[in-house]
């Protein structure tokens, strides 16, 4: 016991040192920035709004990671590609022609719903196929094996879609109805960002209710808890896992359309980074938990947007926006040192992980 305590003391000392030094840098940088005060209050509100809009998208993608992780304990590296495949297909086959014919501007709501439907369906199709071909046969394999197939699937899908649609950046048409600005707390909010935030909230709440209130949702939770017992209870495990993948991919497909609305261009490589960020967000919030994914996404989005100017501007770091991922990952390390199970993750996750 004595020895063990000593061990912990040494480790705790180091961890505390790390915590303290990160916090000192953060606080010092913030004070320096604020006393210098290069940004107005309005700028800060802007930063936060940008962060929330970006974070909403991370949250929607993170849901897919979290759902799949919940039932399979597997990091689905190809999830970013589900996101890309839907919106790429919708852009090439639907949004492009609709915009060229002028229908998009005449009937924006119908067009957007159509685009959304195609995007979600494609993502779901790709996800279910991927699950069927690449993951299902490996249910019983060692834990890292599905991770590698997922990486393989990620490359394969990326380059398949590049082969299909070409390597260039494809424009997503601007929707006139969503290009305005709305006054908000002394600053202006882009309508497209507002749509993103509202749509995210609706979808997250819908998903939460689905998982908590419906029979299928119950089945998903049962499979997440224990596959064998769930099977004994008469739940078709394979089908439930497929549904989980489909749900996650549908969210990713929707996120893809929101992404395209805000950023107005798509590319075969666009899934990689958001996928990585969403994965980070899922872990940050506590992987396996739906509210966790939402909160993790928002946290990450806000840190990325507010962090660089707040912490680094005052320290006279050149080109500090380059370092926003450094801030995001440092925050991740900091939070996981304090709470190894993520912001609202269950203690349980640690044991299974």
């Amino acid at each position, binding site marked *: 016991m004595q020895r063990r305590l000593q061990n912990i003391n040494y480790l705790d000392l180091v961890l505390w040192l790390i915590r303290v030094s990160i916090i000192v840098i953060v606080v010092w940088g913030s004070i320096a920035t604020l006393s210098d005060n*290069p*940004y*107005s209050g*309005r*700028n800060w509100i*802007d*930063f936060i709004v*940008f*962060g929330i*809009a*970006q974070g909403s998208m991370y949250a929607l993608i993170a849901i897919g990671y979290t759902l799949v992780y919940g039932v399979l304990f597997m990091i689905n590296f190809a999830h970013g590609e589900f996101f890309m495949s839907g919106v790429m297909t919708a852009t090439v086959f639907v949004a492009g022609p609709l915009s060229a014919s002028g229908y998009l501007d005449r009937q924006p709501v119908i067009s957007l719903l159509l685009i959304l439907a195609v995007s979600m369906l494609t993502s779901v199709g790709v996800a279910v196929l991927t699950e069927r071909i690449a993951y299902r046969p490996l249910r019983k394999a060692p834990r890292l094996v599905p991770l590698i197939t997922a990486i393989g699937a990620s490359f394969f899908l990326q380059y398949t879609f*590049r082969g299909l649609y*070409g*390597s*260039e*950046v*494809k*424009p997503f*048409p*601007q929707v006139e109805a969503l290009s305005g*600005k709305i006054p908000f707390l002394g*600053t*202006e909010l*882009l309508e497209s960002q507002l749509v993103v935030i509202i749509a995210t909230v609706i979808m997250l709440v819908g998903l939460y209710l689905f998982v908590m209130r419906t029979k299928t949702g119950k089945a998903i939770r049962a499979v997440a808890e224990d596959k064998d017992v769930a099977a004994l209870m008469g739940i078709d495990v394979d089908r439930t896992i497929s549904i989980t993948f489909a749900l996650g991919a549908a969210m990713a497909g929707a996120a893809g359309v929101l*992404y395209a609305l805000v*950023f*107005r*261009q798509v*590319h075969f*490589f*666009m899934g*990689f*980074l*958001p996928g990585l960020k969403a994965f980070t967000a899922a872990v940050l919030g506590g992987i396996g938990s739906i509210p966790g994914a939402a909160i993790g996404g928002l946290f990450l989005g806000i840190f*990325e*947007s*507010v962090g*660089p*100017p707040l912490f680094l*501007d005052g320290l006279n770091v*050149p*080109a*500090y*926006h*380059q370092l*926003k*991922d450094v801030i995001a990952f440092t925050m991740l390390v900091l939070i996981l040192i304090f709470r190894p199970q993520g912001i609202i993750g269950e203690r349980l996750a640690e044991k299974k992980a």
Partner: protein
Amino acid sequence: MKKMLFILSVLVVASMVLAACGPAGPAECTDELGCAVYGPEDPIRIASALVITGPDAQLGLDSQHGVEIAIAMRGNVAGHSVELQAEDDGCNAEGGQAAGQKIVSDPSIVAVVGTSCSGAGVPMSKVISEAGYVMVSPSNTAPSLTDPAQAWNPGYLRTAHNDKVQGAAMAKFAYEVLGLKTAAAIHDGDPYTEGLANAFRESFESLGGKVVAFTAVSKGDTDMKPVLTAVAASEGGAPEFLFFPVFTAECAFLAKQTKEVTGLENTVTAAADGCFSAAAAEAIGEAGNGMYFSGPDLSFSGDTYTTFKEQYNTLFGSDPISVFHAHAFDATNMIFDCIEKVGVTSDDGSLSVGRAALRSCLYATSGYQGITGTLTCNEYGDCADPKISVSILENGEYKRIWP
């Protein structure tokens, strides 16, 4: 087992002997670096080493298309057809080195068009140079590559302009033509964009302007609004001119989002040739109206470029997807011209091209009329016509306005 061992050792010894003897060069070749020899029916082989995988693939594919069109339009060179060996430089140092080693292990390759990325060009030029080959890059712009004190190696040339030229041209245009006194520059951490942004900053400041913000985003970033908001809130006030010499994806994000950020509504935006293509114009869309682009001056080339574009469309189904196809086209033709000049055709129709002769012929290129301008190489291989033009984007069309 002993038998196998014996066979193995015989094999090893035999291969050592064979390797030591090596293939002797043809008797008639007197070139100090050796010759590339082609039989009467053999095609002349050139290699390309461009980035054709990964996120920057369109940059390299576009250049590769330029090479392929040059070959198609040329037909025969010195009475031989031409075969292209397309390699991938991966846009990174190890890719460039591996591609270089592969190329120099093939004695039938006479010259190389490549690399796309300066990062790949540095190690590759070393390999190519040591092996006595020659390379002409259509899109390396890093100043270090033609600086003998840094990374220049004999046998390296380029038809792309040095970053210094383009950055200075844009600064001059902003300061003198548009009369803007404050500017900001954003790069994306790529050696190319970082070099260009730096060159712009230096020139703009030396002209007397003030650079209020010099910052960077990361490749793959999508939400540029925080950076732009920070630029708008710079100490010297929002810049009148914003230069972001990044590639298509990030460039389009920056162009679109600049219009959405409060404080930058009236800022004049500009990008460089990484974002100067029909595909980029389409990706930027309406937000690009009134935006300036610096790039090679393609306007006076007239007919050749029109034919070139038609060829591009028939062969690859789209307008050029990036900007360096023209440089690649010129680089390939420069090589072909020199092959015709120094190649020795013997009676049976076989062709021998001396490598040192080819090198010195390329370095001696002067007044070559290409579609990127009149190319004249200096002793360190900078061949680009230092003419940079600035175009304005209006309704999806580029219009050249300066000089």
